[in-house]
């Protein structure tokens, strides 16, 4: 008697299955009335196609509407596939995570240990390609709370054998201060955070820092902190927001010329953190290869829906398929430059992420200036 091959849904992310096999299995799991979630089974009734019979390929994922806005209000229980009831060995309750909350109320997702472990292990394996030291302490200048980056970083510190020094950081409050136009409030909050960074950096032996780009920049306003980092810190990872190529180059050449700097791209909607492709020069823009086919990117011309040529900027579409979640065809607010996937997997890699430019500002006509 032979053991059946594991489902593509249960394959470790480091040894990915064929994309088409994963699409078939994911659709079968999420839309079978016995295993699918209440959310998708209900939502399927409103579709003008039958996912079980009409969706076979990665291309077919674009048949789906973008449902991520519905994640702002649906109960988490309704997102969990009912098939989990018959899977033994998973006793944990869903771990809730949320999006940043830039575009209104946050979008809410969840994870169970099967997928969380797959994603985290993949993250660690990609970090190991980056000369990451073991046994050094980590300072996490990244949000905890509902933001998965905090948990991901904390767990990475443990995996790499370091003590984790977390920080309370509320990016939504910072965004609210910015939106209210109160420069003083923003400055006050940022100073409050950098003070906390300072207390840790000046008293603890920190070897790695995980930070958001704005806070990394705020840390750079204090010369003595820059000196401490240059003396003692081996690696900085940045994540949680984009860092433009000019800033990244200044960081790598002028501010922290000796520090190993690694960009991380991630979001709740793809449930993973993606370390930048290893091997690039210090001043080259970071390129991110997603864990295809579990999370895939496309960079498209939003007018035509077609991919832009490699090397050109397009709007980001993501597909995310695991046993936990089915979030296909999510057109993001970000644009990025399209690259071939570095490992030859399905979908695109991306670099130089930035928000879609907004043209909503009122024209200023009056006056001579």
């Amino acid at each position, binding site marked *: 008697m032979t053991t059946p091959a594991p489902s593509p849904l249960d394959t470790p992310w480091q040894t990915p299955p064929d994309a088409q096999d994963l699409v078939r299995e994911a659709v079968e799991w999420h839309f079978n009335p016995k295993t699918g979630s209440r959310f998708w089974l209900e939502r399927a009734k409103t579709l003008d196609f039958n996912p079980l019979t009409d969706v076979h390929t990665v291309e077919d994922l674009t048949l789906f509407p973008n449902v991520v806005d519905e994640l702002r209000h649906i109960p988490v229980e309704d997102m969990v596939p009912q098939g989990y009831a018959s899977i033994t060995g998973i006793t944990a309750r869903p771990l809730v995570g949320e999006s940043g909350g830039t575009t209104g109320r946050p979008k809410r997702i969840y994870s169970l240990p099967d997928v969380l472990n797959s994603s985290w292990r993949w993250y660690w394996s990609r970090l190991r390609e980056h000369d990451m030291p073991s046994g050094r302490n980590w300072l996490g200048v990244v949000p905890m709370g509902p933001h998965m980056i905090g948990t991901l970083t904390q767990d990475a510190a443990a995996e790499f054998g370091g003590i984790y020094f977390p920080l309370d950081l509320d990016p939504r409050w910072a965004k609210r201060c910015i939106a209210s136009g109160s*420069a003083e409030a923003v*400055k006050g909050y940022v100073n409050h955070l950098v003070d906390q960074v300072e207390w840790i950096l000046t008293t603890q032996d920190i070897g790695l820092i995980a930070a958001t780009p704005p806070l990394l*920049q705020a840390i*750079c*306003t204090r*010369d003595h902190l820059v000196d401490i980092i240059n003396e003692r810190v081996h690696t900085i990872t940045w994540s949680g927001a984009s860092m*433009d*190529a*000019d*800033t990244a*180059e*200044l*960081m790598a050449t*002028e*501010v922290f010329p000796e520090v190993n700097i690694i960009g991380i791209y991630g979001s709740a909607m793809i449930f993973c953190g993606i370390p930048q492709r290893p091997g690039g020069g210090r001043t080259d823009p970071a390129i991110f290869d997603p864990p295809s086919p579990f999370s895939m990117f496309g960079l498209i011309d939003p007018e035509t829906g077609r991919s832009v040529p490699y090397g050109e900027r397009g709007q980001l579409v993501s597909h995310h398929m695991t046993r936990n979640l089915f979030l296909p065809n999510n057109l993001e607010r970000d644009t990025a430059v399209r690259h071939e996937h570095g490992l030859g997997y399905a979908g695109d890699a991306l670099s130089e992420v930035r928000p879609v430019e907004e043209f909503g500002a009122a*024209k*200023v*006509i*009056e*006056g*001579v*200036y």
Partner: protein
Amino acid sequence: MPTASPALMELAALGPRGPYVSRNRQLVTDVRGGPLAELSLVPALFVQRAMRTLSTAESPGESDREAALTQAGPLFTTGAVGGVSAEEYHRAVAAASGMPITFVRTASRGVGDYAAAAFDAARMARPVGAVSGWRDPAARSGAAVWVRRGDVLAVHAPANTPAVHAAWLDALALGYRVAVRPSRREPFTPHRLVAALRESGFGPDQLLLLPTDHAAADGIIADADVALAFGGDAVVGKYGAGPMVLPQGPGRSKILLTSGVDVERHLDTIVESVADQAGTGCVNATAVFVEGDPAPVAEAIAARLADAPALPPEDERAVLPVRAESDARDIDEFLRSRRGDARPLLGDTVVAELGDGSAALRPAVFLLDRADAPQARIELGFPCVWVAPWTRQDGMAPLRDTLVLTVLGEDEALVDRLVAEPSIRNVHVGDHPTTWSRPGVPHDGYLGEFLMRAKTVIRDDPGR
């Protein structure tokens, strides 16, 4: 075969380590939409680090500042700066801003002349009771010493005319280190001026050109000690309350003709006030108040401005500003939506298409029927003037909020009141257009009143 397009000018940021070319570059176009230059925009981290260099630097001594300014003036006006001749620079400004080239030459010569005179001009603001340094013998018996309120000045510069860049030269003369954020529409003038000043002796840790997008722009002001911010009422509203930012808001300059004045005799002064420099400045008159019947005055102005030809800005005969056609239409539409019951004597439409994607803005002369008509406060960057009646009963109210007021007529009691009125910042009596100025007289108060203060120093007499 397509003709090769001329090479784009490269406008680097001028940072503390010299020119900085970023990946994030903005295309600067001419008024026809054609490419002119690539401007490097610096990220916030660059701003942050550059501003720290400025704040920790030491200013050169007085004689070095004087020498550098004196040398930079003629270099800016006529020299080759960074390999760019004066004429190339003038053409770039005309093409990008749409200001007629002859006015560009005059305005930029004004900036060069101001630079050469700035060292002495800046000292005109010093209180008569103050000495310029604590080593002055007067301090032995106790004296006021004129000192800086800070060390670093930030400037958010506009694009309307090169002339605005004379505004911050006093600061260099007084020993401030200066960071200029240029307008992305016309970065040529500040780039040339900063480069000329650097070539003449100001170190890269004294004077920066930091082109940025909006997001990074606030950092320049936040990291400076004091700042000059040009803009409309919104900018004044944003910074007006703080003591460290001096907003340079709308000019709303005006002319007042008192009873019995012969308009024909003063028409040159009036028309020059409205239309000199193509009406691009805050010192150009936007309203004319007439004690008596305003209609003949409006008609006389309209008659003089009616024949101004619509020409590309590079044309030697051009006198009107040119904009991208769509921008010109927006301005026209704005004027239509706001002119209300004003009677257009000229400028029913102000758009004069040039057929190449750009349009000249024709002069507009409107007649109002009362002194307190709100239209009289509308200021636009081309010759556009509101002519209204004024009586003694109307009083000061319609004349307030004025950068320059030229009063025509002989009424000393009225002049007393105009000079005393705090919201009228300059008064020209007689045939002196609102656009008149020279180094050494204040523009909107002396900049030195904002940059400097007096403090008491008394010290022992080393001789005793």
